[in-house]
């Protein structure tokens, strides 16, 4: 199978270029396997990866124009020549490795931890199965960055717009019956940029390898705000 892979090493290259590789495929092979095979051919080729099963979120790349996790993307689903690039809109460190620090900074801005004001009980805080169900579709995020780096609003304002990943996380805590900081959370999302730069383009939904729906989460936050306003 033919691949065209983005290369850039700031130590040696003046500018990025695409390099052709050919990989012998076998049944059930994933894109990560192909990238590892390319690395065997050229050990200077660099990309992040770890668990190989879609839970650690390391190996998000842009393949044939879409953001995907390499380890759970079957080669059989990809059109040849497979074009592999780093995530769009992020500074490239080297080859497929991008600088994700802005993405992580936005995550931290939503205070992504459970806030309780009451003293803790001796045992667990009780939560009904129905209340717990509200976290499904929110807590499973693996922070791979496929969504935020596919979002045009995030490309233009990566420092001001929180991006789909951070907003999904904000919603995860708003939806948690145990959390007691809804008001502060909602207040902190006010203003024209942080959340309201979302123009429901829905690239994030398309890109999420875990089948999550950040646009719906953002809509949910907006609905709570509206309800509170009335």
């Amino acid at each position, binding site marked *: 199978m033919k691949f065209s892979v983005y290369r850039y090493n700031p130590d040696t290259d003046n500018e990025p270029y695409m390099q052709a590789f050919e990989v012998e495929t076998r049944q059930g092979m994933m894109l990560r396997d192909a990238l590892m095979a390319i690395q065997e051919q050229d050990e200077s080729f660099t990309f992040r990866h770890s*668990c190989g099963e879609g839970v650690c979120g390391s190996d998000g790349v842009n393949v044939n124009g879409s953001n995907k996790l390499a380890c759970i993307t079957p080669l059989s689903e990809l059109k040849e020549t497979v074009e592999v690039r780093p995530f769009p809109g992020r500074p490239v*460190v080297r080859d497929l490795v991008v600088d994700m620090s802005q993405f992580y900074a936005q995550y931290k801005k939503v205070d992504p931890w459970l806030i309780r004001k009451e003293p803790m009980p001796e045992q667990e805080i009780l939560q009904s199965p129905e209340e717990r169900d509200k976290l499904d579709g929110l807590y499973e995020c693996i922070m791979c960055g496929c969504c935020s780096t596919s979002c045009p609003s995030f490309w233009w304002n990566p420092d001001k717009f929180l991006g789909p990943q951070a907003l999904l996380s904000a919603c995860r805590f708003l939806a948690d019956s145990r959390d007691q900081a809804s008001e502060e959370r909602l207040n902190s999302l006010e203003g024209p940029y942080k959340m309201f730069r979302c123009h429901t383009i829905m690239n994030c939904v398309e890109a999420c390898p875990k089948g999550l729906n950040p646009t719906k989460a953002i809509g949910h936050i907006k609905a709570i705000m509206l309800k509170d306003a009335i």
Partner: protein
Amino acid sequence: MALEKQRFDTLILGAGGAGLNAALQLANANLKVAVVSKVFPTRSHTVAAQGGVNAALANVLPDNWHWHMFDTVKGSDYLGDQDAIEYMCREAIPTVYELEHNGVPFSRLANGKIYQRAFGGQSQNFGGDQAARTCAAADRTGHAILHTLYQQNIRAKTHFFDEYFAADLIRDQEGIILGALVLDIATGEPLLIEAKTTLLATGGCGQVFRTTSNAHINTGDGKAMILRAGLPLMDMEFFQFHPTGIAGKGMLITEGVRGEGGYLINKDGERFMEKYAPNAKDLASRDVVARSIVTEVRGGRGCGPEADHVMLKVNHLDEEVIAKRLPGIRESSKIFAGVDPVKDPIPVFPTAHYVMGGIPTDRFGRVMPTSDDDGDHLPGLYAAGECACASVHGANRLGGNSLLDILVFGRLAGKNIIDYVRDNPSHRPLDEASVSSAMDRFNKWDAKGDGITVSELRKEFRKTMEDHAGVFRVEDMMQEGVEKVRAIRDKLADVRLTDHSKTFNTNRTEALELENMIDVGLSIAVSALHRKESRGAHSRPDYPKRDDAEWMKHTLYWREGDKLEYKGVRSQPLTVESFPPKERVY
């Protein structure tokens, strides 16, 4: 350029469950703590743990920590230290409640309490009916826990060194650890972190085997650093092969599948675990189930065109149960096995999963440097989680006890470090000789010219480990394995990097990892060769019986001269009576 240095009260190597739970205690106590991780913290392999964490909460069936303790001692095939096991099983309960308070989205029961499922090796009343002790967040418990701990560490303002690779420990003439030499992967620059205390929480080493459920990062870095620092590893011959990896691939299918009612069948559709473990059947201990699968396949009863695996049947379960309790497994099976478990059984075979052995510690997480039964710990050095050996798992770990181990001992190490730093408030003088020897090892990879590539030698090494130190082990095969791994260690000198640039050089980090894996692999091969009995995961057809008179003892391995010494099992618990060794049947 002068080597950059930074100072902290505590240095934690590794940002999985153990490292982050320790960091959280320390940051909450306002200590200056540095967490070094070669990947962004939520990429640590704790994230992949599926089934859950054991604690005798008794939310579903009657339970108490003493029964949990019995199961763990029995599961360990009586090689576990009973003081540490008692501590872990008692602490499990407050540890899980603390996690829940921190925000872990556990699945819930109708009464609002944490959902618990049945797992292998669990019993009520010291070997009676099946217990339900594993607290679960669907089949993504590790993910839920790791993300929660990271979130709480952001709140507590823990100082993270993300994508820094720890190369070597720095120590003085007395052997006291002064911190570590680390590498900023993005820039290729070394950094010396000096610390009053160091906690190793670097996780496992499953990458030493070709087929493994472990991530690319699980290369035993902390274990190898300990070996290079002249300290021993304990019980490295005990490596757990998880019964149900996806056949030919190695990705894990949680024991929770069998806990929810799934079972194994051979090519004749026979539920074969009934032969090997008449009572517990598919929920027998992992070593027992893994051996049974291999025995079925070797007996010609395997499935598939190569007859090289068995099937895990789930499709008799309600689709609702699968959707609710095992959503991740359904997803993985579809992606990697091309099978929807709601309709068809999943092809499975044992996969290298977990190392019971590791850096010897006492039940406070302090590193023990000698084989002396009454010996003292090494001041200021701690280890917790899969890189350590407390020893709570002995010869075989029970499912659900791994998340428990990392959380309990990570938390405990954190608490003990707080006391240590209070009593020892100053940094010790730096030992320049130790720094330069670490730098030399690091710089040696600058050598240019033709040689073997990292990936070539890695392939040869991992295949050798799989062929010579797998589920069943016999003398000749292992002797040959040790020689082969030694030869591979010699070949390391001929490995050359093809990439010498500074920026994000994975060729360099993978070479450092390969060096670590080979040292750790040899500790496994040598320790295994010399243990002439079958116990837990160490299964020797040439010595099929457990031999308590001769072998109820821990192995200690030193890198220098591949030296072995032995140390007694601590059979005396803290407050209850000892569980004496019995024949282990399920």
